[in-house]
């Protein structure tokens, strides 16, 4: 049918099977997640692919992508370190934690490290307020929580990821 479909045919059929025939359009969000799995953002050509699979217009797919914060139209770091600075976390020091993480990584909030690996972002409540400071890591098609953080623990995690990526590149 198209590139996205051919690549993930089995998975896409599984997604479509979750919804009734008249609700095919429900697959649009799962498909956007699928489309950004590899690169961390939704490539433009995927929009028309998704439109074709779900039977809606490309403009509709693009506006849905724009509405939801977990979909990204632009490339960024391979991993997004998304630190919650919403009220309950801020009451437990997450704003200064964010500042320190930015300093350690040599970036401002919203920026990407020179090696292209990490983008640091401030985000809203992630339902982990009792374990602040915390962040979620979005990348490689996954979203993982890291809770009860401090700068040292987080920088260790960052280093582990850097090692993992370096090892990958050598292999």
């Amino acid at each position, binding site marked *: 049918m198209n590139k996205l479909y051919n690549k993930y045919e089995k998975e896409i059929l599984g997604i479509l099977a979750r919804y009734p025939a008249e609700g095919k359009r429900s697959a649009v*969000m*799962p498909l956007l*997640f699928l489309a950004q799995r590899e690169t961390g953002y939704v490539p433009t050509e995927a929009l028309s692919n998704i439109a074709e699979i779900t039977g809606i217009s490309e403009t509709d797919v693009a506006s849905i992508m724009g509405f939801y*914060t*977990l*979909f990204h139209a632009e490339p960024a770091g391979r991993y997004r370190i998304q630190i919650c600075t919403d009220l309950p976390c801020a009451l437990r020091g997450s704003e200064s934690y964010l500042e320190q993480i930015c300093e350690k990584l040599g970036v401002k909030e919203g920026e990407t490290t020179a090696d292209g690996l990490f983008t640091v972002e401030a985000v*809203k409540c992630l339902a982990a307020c009792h374990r602040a400071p915390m962040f979620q890591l979005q990348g490689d098609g996954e*979203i993982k929580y890291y809770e009860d953080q401090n700068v040292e623990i987080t920088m260790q995690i960052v280093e582990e990821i850097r090692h993992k990526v370096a090892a990958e590149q050598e292999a």
Partner: protein
Amino acid sequence: MEKYILLRHRDVPEIDQLDVYKANDGLVAFEKVVKSMQPADVTLEVKNSGLRGRGGAGFPTGIKWGFLPNNSWPHYVVANADESEPGTFKDREIMESNPFQFLEGLMIASYAVQANQAYVYLRGEFWQLAAFLDEKIKDLEVAGYLGEKILGTDYSLKINTHLGAGAYICGEETALLESLEGKLGQPRLRPPFPAAVGLYGKPTLINNVETLTNLPLIIQKGADWYRSFGTEQSPGVKIFSLSGCVNKPGNYELPLGVTYQELIFEHGGGIVNDNKIKAVMSAGASSDVVVADDFCLQTPLAYETCLDRIKAPLGSASIIVLDETVDMAWLVSKTVNFFKHESCGKCTPCREGTFWMDSLTKHMMANESRSEDIDLLRSVALQVQGKCLCALGEFSTMAVVTAVDRFRADFETHVRS
């Protein structure tokens, strides 16, 4: 003696494994309803239990089930697992640690309204959790509790998870339905209500995760047993998500009617650094800011008492504790920034109002405001109230108005006269 009704994983290790769950009375209630109860009798039992919706509004659950018309089919059930209100983290613990009880509750609700398809709508950030639930659903299918002709009866049910993608507004039930249909998460005009015209235009029941998790034990032990906890108008237990300036933030499952005093000082270990408590919010960022005087602290946390005594709805019971070091102008700058970020933009008062409140409080925090701006901020909030399509607009103003009225001095330190 087991202590918990909802957070049973704290009593029973590995209750997230199907065999352990079953060995601890798991699925007894579901088996009972599909094999021996009429759907209407299930609804009646839940009505009698007095269970009220735990998603925020506190609407009686059994009564809501009764709204689905019997002349329009199919019916759908959707579990609201969007959990995005700042300060709320209870549904996540239930699903992560006691998933089968939640799923069994969803199955009981589905049977009661005779739905053959149910969805769990999770916020997109719960990506790992959705994969985990998918495994648990598989386990139930393999064991014959989900699928076609369940346990030899005529009843069939399928459950699927569906991930949102980062939008608080999708917790509002009609925005959730739009989102689940693959559209922008923007609330629908009501009426019609989802019970009549919901998912794909069909009658749809939407219940919160915690609401559903109450059902297995209500069915198994009966409405009277459930009513032995809580208050007359707010029966049962509730999970209080406690956050902010307390020593032991976390989820506390307690009977409705426990006082603020007991929750914060006995269970929550009191205020950090032995500071003085200044204020509380009971429904996350959507709350009034209530002065934590003795009268407030003695208030029982139940739907009716919170309204009657301190005029601040219990909501999702996400209690944010604020101590004497918290600057209320800063607090308001945080809450309005949240709502500005989350406004879906469909109606002007909410979209523009949250934009202006955010801008005014930003200037205040930068000490660039004049004293008139405090009243301007308050009046923008008042102009938003009562003019919005959904409750988010209203929510954005609650902390603003109450904080300005009750803690004006905090705002004055940021302005020039």
